[in-house]
């Protein structure tokens, strides 16, 4: 395979595939990331794997919604496979999804989601069955065999659009060589009728497989877009809480929920909500604090008069109409992100110059140092440093039209926000990739030690369960020295540190990606 270097985003995706699915899937995925749409027969030639292995790898990836296929343009009888980039990237966010679902709903929903994430695509009965099994193992409770509670949780998840139906075979699929898949809009979130009875029976019998069931044709998967919306909402609510106070965050959370219910998720602006609707919702919500109920209008007013455009007032009907314009609010968030990056990398004086140029649009060098009140030498140094790292851009305007004498030109500095955001996004992908590489390297370097430690731990657990006396256990555990144990502890803490760092880098990536997506929509 020619050694084209993958872009940073694709490198991250490769790393994720390798980590979660293994080398073979990783190789196939890397090839498809490099080459785009490819039919089946190209992949073994290029990667050197056997065709059976490639087929299995593709099947796994399709099952997990990472690869899609469609008929090639040149020849309708051949299917071309391509990677769904966003879904591969979202592999990184699975822990966040589980945490969010647990926070919003509870443990049973979390288990359902975890099973669905593990299976990739599954029918509702299968998911419920497996979750019930998992709960049974965890609780060691053989009496728990009532899956109707899980059924209710499943319905809740579908209602709030966290899971979505997969497209099924189209009607004319048998005629074509390459089948097409489609799903109707209104059926995307409707759960078909399930028969809980057989499931309960199988659970009582401690079966491990579900077997035939009525709704095996209706397959579900995780709805990544909905989770993205939820992650964005978390950022927005935090911004509101920082800007005003925690009660304002509460109010904003409610308003976001109302907007989501009444607007189209793909549009850059939400539909308008009237004041009375918001008031009713606040009154009806049981969790509202008394402070919010008392000063509700004031909180709303402080939020929409704030300069961060968290709420925009557009009209007066019904006591006031309020919308959220995603592009303005994410522009503000992206600007805050870039400000933070400039501050940490270059210092507060450079931040002042950066913000000044961004707010005033076009500035000359002298104006910048006068308004920012920074000594001339330092101002020049920081300006050129920012220019070198592409945070500032230059525009030259020529003054005068003489043909003979050299023409004096104005040199103006400005901030081209989409360009700077794209640069920062690429740097974030690179940082994320580096963190992952470092984590993988640490784990593989010390693999032998970690394996030994893991084996020892499981051995101790089983022996303890069987009732072996403590001094024998102590003797066994001494087979690893204290230094080795502390090293293992250190490796684990480094691992956690790196995982946390990756999550934080993902936050920045979400904000910058959202800004670029919404600004290109308008």
């Amino acid at each position, binding site marked *: 395979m020619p050694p084209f270097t993958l872009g940073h985003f694709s490198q991250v995706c490769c790393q994720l595939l390798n980590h979660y699915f293994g080398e073979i899937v990783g190789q196939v995925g890397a090839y498809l990331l490099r080459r785009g749409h490819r039919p089946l027969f190209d992949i073994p030639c290029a990667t050197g794997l056997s065709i059976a292995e490639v087929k299995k790898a593709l099947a796994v990836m399709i099952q997990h919604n990472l690869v899609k296929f469609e008929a090639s343009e040149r020849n309708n009888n051949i299917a071309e496979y391509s990677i769904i980039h966003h879904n591969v990237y979202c592999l990184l966010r699975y822990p966040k999804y589980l945490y969010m679902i647990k926070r919003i709903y509870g443990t049973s929903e979390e288990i359902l989601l975890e099973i669905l994430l593990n299976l990739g695509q599954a029918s509702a009965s299968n998911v419920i069955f497996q979750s019930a099994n998992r709960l049974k193992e965890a609780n060691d409770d053989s009496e728990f065999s009532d899956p109707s509670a899980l059924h209710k949780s499943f319905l809740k998840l579908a209602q709030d659009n966290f899971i979505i139906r997969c497209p099924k075979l189209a009607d004319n699929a048998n005629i074509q060589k390459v089948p097409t898949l489609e799903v109707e809009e209104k059926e995307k979130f409707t759960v078909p009728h399930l028969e809980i009875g057989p499931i309960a029976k199988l659970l009582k019998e401690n079966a491990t497989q579900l077997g035939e069931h009525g709704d095996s044709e209706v397959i579900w998967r995780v709805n990544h877009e909905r989770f993205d919306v939820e992650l964005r909402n978390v*950022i927005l609510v935090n*911004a509101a809480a*920082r*800007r*005003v*106070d925690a*009660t*304002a965050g509460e109010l904003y959370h409610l308003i976001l929920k109302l907007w989501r219910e009444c607007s189209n998720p793909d549009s850059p602006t939400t539909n308008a909500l009237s004041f009375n609707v918001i008031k009713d919702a606040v009154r009806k919500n049981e969790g509202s604090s008394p*402070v919010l109920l*008392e*000063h509700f209008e*004031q909180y709303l007013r*402080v939020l929409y008069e704030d*300069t*961060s455009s968290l709420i925009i007032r557009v009209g007066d009907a019904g006591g006031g109409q309020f919308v959220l314009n995603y592009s303005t609010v994410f522009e*503000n*968030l992206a600007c*805050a*992100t*870039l*400000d*933070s*990056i400039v501050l*940490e*990398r270059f210092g*507060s004086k450079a*931040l*002042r110059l950066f*913000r*000044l140029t961004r*707010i005033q649009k076009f500035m000359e060098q002298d104006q910048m140092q006068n308004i*920012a*009140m*920074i*000594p*001339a030498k*330092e101002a020049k140094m920081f300006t050129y440093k920012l220019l070198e790292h592409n945070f500032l851009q230059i525009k030259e305007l020529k003054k005068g039209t003489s043909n003979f004498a050299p023409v004096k030109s104005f040199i103006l500095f400005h901030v081209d926000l989409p360009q700077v955001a794209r640069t*920062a996004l690429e*740097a*974030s992908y*690179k*940082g994320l990739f*580096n*963190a992952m*590489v*470092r984590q993988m*390297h640490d784990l593989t370097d010390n693999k032998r030690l970690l394996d030994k430690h893991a084996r020892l731990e499981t051995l101790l657990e089983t022996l303890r369960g069987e009732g072996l006396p403590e001094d024998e256990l102590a003797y066994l555990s001494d087979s690893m020295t204290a230094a080795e144990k502390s090293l293992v502890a250190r490796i684990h803490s*480094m691992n956690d*540190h*790196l995982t946390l*760092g*990756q*999550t*934080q*880098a*993902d*936050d*920045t*990536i979400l*904000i910058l990606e959202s800004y670029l997506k919404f600004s290109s929509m308008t």
Partner: protein
Amino acid sequence: MASPVVIKKEKVDEPRPSPSADAGEGQTEAEIECRMIELMGEFPKGINDKILETDMPNVDKKVKVAILNRLLSQEKVNIFRAAVTKELFWCLKQQPTSKLKGVDSEEKIVMRIIEEAGNKGIWNRDIRTKSSLNQTTLNKILKALEGKKLIKSVSSVSAAKKKVYMLFNLQPDRSVTGGSWYSDNEFESELVDVLNQQCYRILQQKAEGAKQKPLEGPLIVRNASFLSSKEICQIISDLKIVKFNLTVEDIETILDTLVYDGKIEMSSTTDGYSDGQVKTYRTVEKILSSAGIVRIPCGVCPVIKMCGTVGAVQPKNCVYYDQWLD
């Protein structure tokens, strides 16, 4: 017996001497000059030909012109041309002419050019172009004038080596010395930083005070955390950090730098007392505490561009990661 009364008839003087009676020769030139100077004193804005005509219609035009030219050469009067009517006006020169005694005409020209430049001063080369004098002659004249303490040179803040000349007793303009933030042509960055931090602390305290009463509602809390630029100026002046008087404009330039730092925001409101907009300020929290990416070493790495899977800079053996993970 009545003897006839004889009344002596004597020649009676005319009650007012008619103008025709005193011709040009009767009035001396000195008297005409005095009269002109009196008129110019009565009309400080200047007299023109019409006024002279009504006052002394019999005086010959040639005589008037000669007297006026003499006064001009003695530097007692100035001649101007009105902008609209293009008439000539003469008016008394304000400054006493005694100062310029003892200088010759070349020096006079140079003095006039420097005077016209007012308190902004004028550069050496500009004097040369205006007076079209030789470089060496000009330097000699400037040295002589400086020695006589009639002019002085002030170094401009914009170009450190450039010197501008102005009259001795004038205060240099702000654009030359740079204003309150420059002392000895050096930008006082420490003073600016100190004032910056002080203003921010004042606004922070106001916001803290406002937050103490959350029960009144967030609107009251927010409005109570605003301070106008005048009030801030007053507080800073009371603290007596700076030796000179701080104006409201000075404080506003400092507050603008805080706005550009992202720490405070400004809003213009109309004040009930004065006309026009009043600028008020309050502290704001940033909407994002810090970008996630800066919390890992790669976000602030100075050699990120050289980092890769092969080579000297790799994540596997990165020193910044080693430090961070310890």
